[in-house]
């Protein structure tokens, strides 16, 4: 019965193919073992983990490629993930540069011994908080946190934009706030250190506040910007985000309001660092030189990226400066944050998250 069936042309082709099937499969099996298993290691290519979302990282790294001819392969991770990867790969680094991301992540990385000190030329003119004393990292931008709320929600609930940390405890926000999860996100860590700072580093007071805030939180997101879209859509009422994500939400057309607490809110320098044992260290250094200089930071405005430049010679773009006017913003002490990051995050996971 099996033989009598009609044989199509494809069946014949398949039959022919069968003969070579085993040899072919063996070849295919070998192929990925050789040659192209690793990312390119040519001198004019760098591998990087980017903590900046692709929307920011890609245009910048493309500009770098256009300016220098050096290609950057990059993969984006939230800061916790990126740091975890770099630590895991310590004995056999897969990337040359860790690009973007709040400075406390880098401070924690120094403790793990994953960075190679390198002082780019720009470091000489940078303010002290924008560079690590021994050159383990250098800042490429400054990124304050903000409160972002949905305008429609405010109107419907007859609220004005939150102007104090305690405003976020208002029962009107019950189950309506979204912000990042400290296990993965650097935004969350900066937020928690901001709360510590406004409570004069009194951990008991700070955690009491964080636990109260928990009652109003609908969701802790994996990524720092994860809550921006829900807030934009009104699925959440508001949250705490980096200004760069908040202004992007607004620019996309979502009706959101940006405000600052009167007690002050933290800003985190965004940094770049050379990975210890980097295979393309020289090209990596060129990227660090470029990113810490006006060459890159002068392009923020062109690409509508609302980071505050770290380099003193680059002017903050006018509309961004307008938003920041009058806001009380303090820098997170990176030494304190780096030294306490793991303990504070663990405590947050154990006490606040459940």
């Amino acid at each position, binding site marked *: 019965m099996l033989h009598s069936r009609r044989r199509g042309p494809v*069946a014949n082709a398949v039959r022919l193919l069968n003969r070579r099937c085993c040899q072919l*499969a063996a070849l295919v099996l070998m192929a*990925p073992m050789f040659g192209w298993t690793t*990312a390119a290691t040519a001198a004019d290519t760098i591998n990087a983990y980017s903590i900046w979302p692709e929307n920011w990282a890609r245009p910048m790294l493309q500009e770098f490629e256009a300016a220098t001819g050096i290609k950057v392969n990059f993969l984006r991770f939230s800061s916790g993930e990126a740091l975890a990867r770099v630590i895991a790969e310590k004995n056999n680094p*897969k990337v040359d540069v860790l690009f973007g991301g709040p400075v406390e992540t880098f401070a924690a990385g120094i403790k793990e011994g994953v960075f190679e000190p390198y002082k780019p030329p720009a470091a000489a003119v940078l303010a002290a908080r924008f560079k690590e004393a021994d050159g383990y990292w250098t800042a490429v931008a400054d990124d304050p946190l903000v409160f972002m709320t949905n305008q429609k929600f405010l109107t419907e609930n007859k609220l004005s934009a939150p102007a104090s940390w305690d405003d976020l405890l208002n029962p009107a926000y019950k189950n309506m706030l979204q912000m990042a999860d400290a296990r993965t996100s650097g935004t969350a860590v900066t937020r928690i250190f901001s709360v510590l700072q406004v409570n004069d580093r009194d951990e008991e007071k700070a955690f009491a506040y964080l636990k109260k805030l928990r009652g109003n939180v609908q969701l802790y997101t994996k990524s720092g910007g994860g809550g921006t879209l829900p807030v934009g859509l009104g*699925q959440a009422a508001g949250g705490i985000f980096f200004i760069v994500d908040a202004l992007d939400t607004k620019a996309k057309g979502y009706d959101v309001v940006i405000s600052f607490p009167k007690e002050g809110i933290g800003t985190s320098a965004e940094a770049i660092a050379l990975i210890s044992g980097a295979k393309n260290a020289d090209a990596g250094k060129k990227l660090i030189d470029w990113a810490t200089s006006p060459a890159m930071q002068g392009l923020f405005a062109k690409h509508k990226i609302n980071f505050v430049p770290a380099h003193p010679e680059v002017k903050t773009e006018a509309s961004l400066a307008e938003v920041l006017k009058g806001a009380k913003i303090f820098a997170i002490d990176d030494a304190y944050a780096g030294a306490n990051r793991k303990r504070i995050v663990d405590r947050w996971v154990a006490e606040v998250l459940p």
Partner: protein
Amino acid sequence: MAISAQVLRPADRAVGLTVVVLWLLLALFVIYPLLMMLSVAFLDGGKPTIAPLIAVLAKPSHRAALLNSLLLGGLVGLFGTALGFLFAFTVARGNLPPRWVRVIDAATLLPLISPPFTTSISFIFSFGPRGLITHDLLGFKGTNVYGLTSTLAAEVLTYFPIAYLTLRPVLSGISGNLEEMAFSLGSRRLHVFRTVTLPLAIPGLANAVLLLFAASLADFATPLILAGNVFPVLPTEAYLQITGLFDLRGGAILSVMLLVPAAIVYLLQRSWVARGHFVTVTGKAGPQSSIRSVTPTARLWLSLACAAVALFILYLYSLLVFASLVSAFGADHTWTLRHYQVIFTEGRKAIVDTLIIALIGMPLGGLYGVLVGYLIARGPAGGRQAMEIVSMINYALPGTIVGIAYLIAFNDPPIALTGTALIIIACYVFRYSPAGIRTTIALMQQIDKSLEEASRSLGARSAATFRRVTLPLVMPAFLAGVGVVFIRSMTAISATIFLVSIGWTLITVRILENMTELSLGPAAAFSVFVIAIVMAVMALLNALLRQLPTATGEQMQWGLGGG
């Protein structure tokens, strides 16, 4: 018959060699990673310890995650099976026109071939404080979209097609004549349904519940988006433990907690399948009497219920298509193709990487499935069952476990594979080939051994017999295996999210990143692209299947479990 003795002829080194090579591969890519994971979880400086396990269990959130996972799995099993039964019963007993059956098949196929997150994304938009359905349509205020209910609903919609595919042949296999006899003996319809149809379907129902339970237990994507912080489940907790805190041991222990229920379900399901379905012995098959086990009114209601579910599924997907075509969903609804432009320029690496990985994995997975299936069905008697069990392990285990085990096993020498394409390909081949294996075994049981015997008695060796007689006959299984590996390469995330690297990334991982970066448009565009390409490849493979001399028309049991 002394066939197996003949296969073992010492001259037939090819078979022996294949067995050895396959066992080496299974040892390397199935057993070794699992043992490494267990050793990370339970060994401390070479000494066995359960202290870390106790430490993990001491955390209330982890205990809650275990209970939540079991609860969610159980509920998905029950509701999903009920929904699958509704569809299967309507199709098998509803006398629907073939056209409608095709529509139902298409609607139920969609969730099976979609990338993860698709239903979850649409759920977020539809429900919640400003959801299109809860707020805009129904006017509810302050609804919450995160938690058990929405996770359950999204998983039921994603996985009920598995129950449908499992139950449809079961119900079709129950002869209508049997029900007819009960009618002619004076039974009422509901009574017939309760005392004849349902009992005969029970093994199938139990099987479906277990399959869905396992799929839900393994699901990582849906809870990541929808479960929120109030309803943590094990796969997502293990993921956060590893990616965020790089706590391999913690992740390994959470995985072991997941392993226990998964193993129990697997063993239960094996014993159900081994026991087989009830055989409805009715003597001569005879012409089917027209099925009248449902009244016309009941038929109408059944059809309407199915149509409503199918429509809801289509609604969820059209929302996704819409989001991929407008500037900024919810704020700026100008039509644009920009997101597609983005995925083919900025996202090109992910697409190319995924396709390369899929294209290499396809022939390997197909061949591996056919070889293992052949050896299980016809190979040397010793070790057949062991090979069957071992070859199913990576499939039966939740992807999170497999991914974590691979990460632990292959991160450092002696076998450092992280960062390569090979580790992702191996993960797919050894995880998603069981469909090909199962189909091969089923086909081999239908192929008369005399065919191969004849070849051998004419002097051909096993290898030649296999290549020239058996392989063409099991071609449908090869294609089924190829198809499943392809679909999974395009849609799976739970295991491979741990294995992507700077050199090799995947579309599904990009979708997740996009969703967390306010890049909803590209996420939706990627999803639509994946669905389109998977459908195209499936259509191609089905066309190939129809051309085959041995095609019997129903081999495409895609064997699609959890992502």
